[in-house]
């Protein structure tokens, strides 16, 4: 009691108490869900009380590695997840290139206008991206098909959206379209931090633009690039589900279903809560391990942690 009273007299503790309702909110919405992991150890049936269902131990986890049907699906889903994440990582140089190209534009007003306009797609939802994709590419109303038909290039529209081919690439395309301008902002910020004297010195030494970009600009941006790259390792399995959810249809379902969407489809659509929880749980654990790995990589390569 005496110890507590002394604590109460400390300013820092009072500040903690004032903040505690907010910390409780964090606990309630981010830590309490962990309790739900218990579902993965039961054979839960929707609508029943959890504890009236059978405790099955690790059955749901074993299923992921032994049940033929589950294994096939998980392999397929992992292939999609890693495939699309990998394409995302490969193309993560695009925002940097874009920022460099933008910085080469001398006309300030033109540069600002472009920067503003290409950032807009970042601020719209995936549902709206889907709607726009529909307006651009659908068979009947799509702008592209209208142009093709009105100019007599084709008699009938092509149904770009229902195609099961190249789903990974089209998803990547939408992702780039949406994220490029926003992704470039951090590099644009980093560009302003590069010392102008370096360029001046290089000029005096007779370096051209290409040489300056290669020897000054790119090295100046690489630290930022590596931090983002390392963070993307931690997010390898987290490509979210919204984008793939809105774009999924009967034709592309096999190659668009990523891990998060699979968990949703199994759990929320198929009501197989227990199995879906088990898959999601394993995903969370692997993600944290990847994050620690990325942090470790960052420590040995840069001497700084990313977290």
């Amino acid at each position, binding site marked *: 009691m005496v110890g507590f009273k002394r604590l109460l007299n400390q300013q820092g503790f009072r500040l903690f108490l*004032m903040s505690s309702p907010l*910390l409780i*909110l964090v606990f309630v919405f981010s830590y309490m869900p*962990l309790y739900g992991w218990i579902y993965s150890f039961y054979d839960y049936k929707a609508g029943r009380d959890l504890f009236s269902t059978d405790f099955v131990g690790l059955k749901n986890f074993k299923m992921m590695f032994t049940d033929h049907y589950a294994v096939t699906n998980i392999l397929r889903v992992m292939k999609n997840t890693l495939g699309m994440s990998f394409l995302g990582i490969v193309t993560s140089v695009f925002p940097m290139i874009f920022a460099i190209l933008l910085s080469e534009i001398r006309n300030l007003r033109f540069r600002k206008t472009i920067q503003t306009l290409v950032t807009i797609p970042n601020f719209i*939802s995936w549902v709206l991206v889907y709607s726009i994709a529909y307006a651009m590419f659908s068979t009947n*109303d799509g702008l592209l098909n209208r142009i093709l038909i009105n100019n007599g290039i084709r008699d009938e529209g092509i149904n770009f959206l229902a195609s099961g081919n190249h789903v990974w690439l089209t998803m990547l395309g939408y992702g780039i379209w949406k994220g490029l301008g926003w992704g470039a902002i951090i590099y644009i910020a980093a560009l302003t931090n590069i010392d102008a004297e370096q360029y001046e010195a290089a000029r005096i030494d007779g370096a051209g633009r290409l040489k300056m970009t290669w020897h000054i600009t790119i090295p100046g941006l690489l630290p930022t690039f590596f931090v983002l790259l390392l963070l993307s390792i931690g997010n390898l399995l987290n490509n979210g589900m919204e984008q793939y959810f809105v774009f999924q249809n009967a034709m592309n379902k096999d190659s668009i279903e990523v891990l998060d969407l699979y968990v949703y489809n199994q759990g929320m659509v198929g009501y197989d809560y227990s199995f879906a929880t088990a898959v*999601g749980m394993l995903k*969370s654990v692997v993600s*944290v391990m990847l994050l620690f790995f990325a942090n470790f990589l960052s420590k040995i390569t840069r001497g700084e942690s990313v977290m």
Partner: protein
Amino acid sequence: MKDLKYKLTTGDYVFNSINYVVLTLFTLTCVIPFYYLFINTISDNTLVTKGLIVWLPQGIHFANYIQILKIDGLFNSVLVSVGRTVLGTVLTLVGTTFLGYAFSRPEFWKRKIWYRFVLITMYFNAGIIPWYINMKNLGLLNNFLAYIIPSIVAPFSLILFKTYVESIPSSLEESADMDGAGYMTKYARLIMPLSKPIVATLAVFSAVGQWNSFTDTLFLMTDPKYYSLQYMLYQYLNESNALADSLRQAAAAGSQVNLATVLTPTGVKMTISMVVVIPILCVYPFLQRYFVNGIMLGAVKG
């Protein structure tokens, strides 16, 4: 930035031209879809159906926008979206900035532990099914509060705000201390007024996030009363034909209608899309300049 004057070589001219063309083309792909949607929503609907509206609007009218709000539940979903955006943004700002300020004070009890306690939630979550079960247990299914309460503490915004507050000279706070100001007074009277640029940035992040949020409606809401605009849009994208048919019949029954202004399935989709996107297009360009600064201040280092 390099802004040195020197003579341009032929190579520079070639590079510049290609650069301008590439950037312009990409910019056009970002702009044309919005323009295309817009001209279709304000054009004669019979021409739109025939596929004749490609570059310029024809037979301009705004009836689509009026009719769309008369669709069952659509006006309600506008209210839901506006409500969650306004309330959610205000609550997030108050909660996140206060906690961010508290974490900027070195005397905060066990500061490191609690700061990590909050930050970890950015990288780690239990998964969607446990999250759903938790929300269900809290009674937040079909409950408007589900849109605004969970977002009160936003870790990423918290980092940005904390970093910003730490850049404010501590002498200012010390002088407030001398005047006997408590934490609440300092937060409300000193820190918040000094942090307007970053607060504006966070407000936009939060407002855009709330306005665009779709999956929470998908998971948590089965009662159409709580459907957000995004969710309605999604539904209409998938099943708008039936809906527009009923609209057409209703309109035809009223006779003497001008078919050019009667909503069509395409019109429904495009007009809702515009209703969803117009607020963003209106607000965003004015606040854009804050982002670069906001991001620079603390995005990379947590």
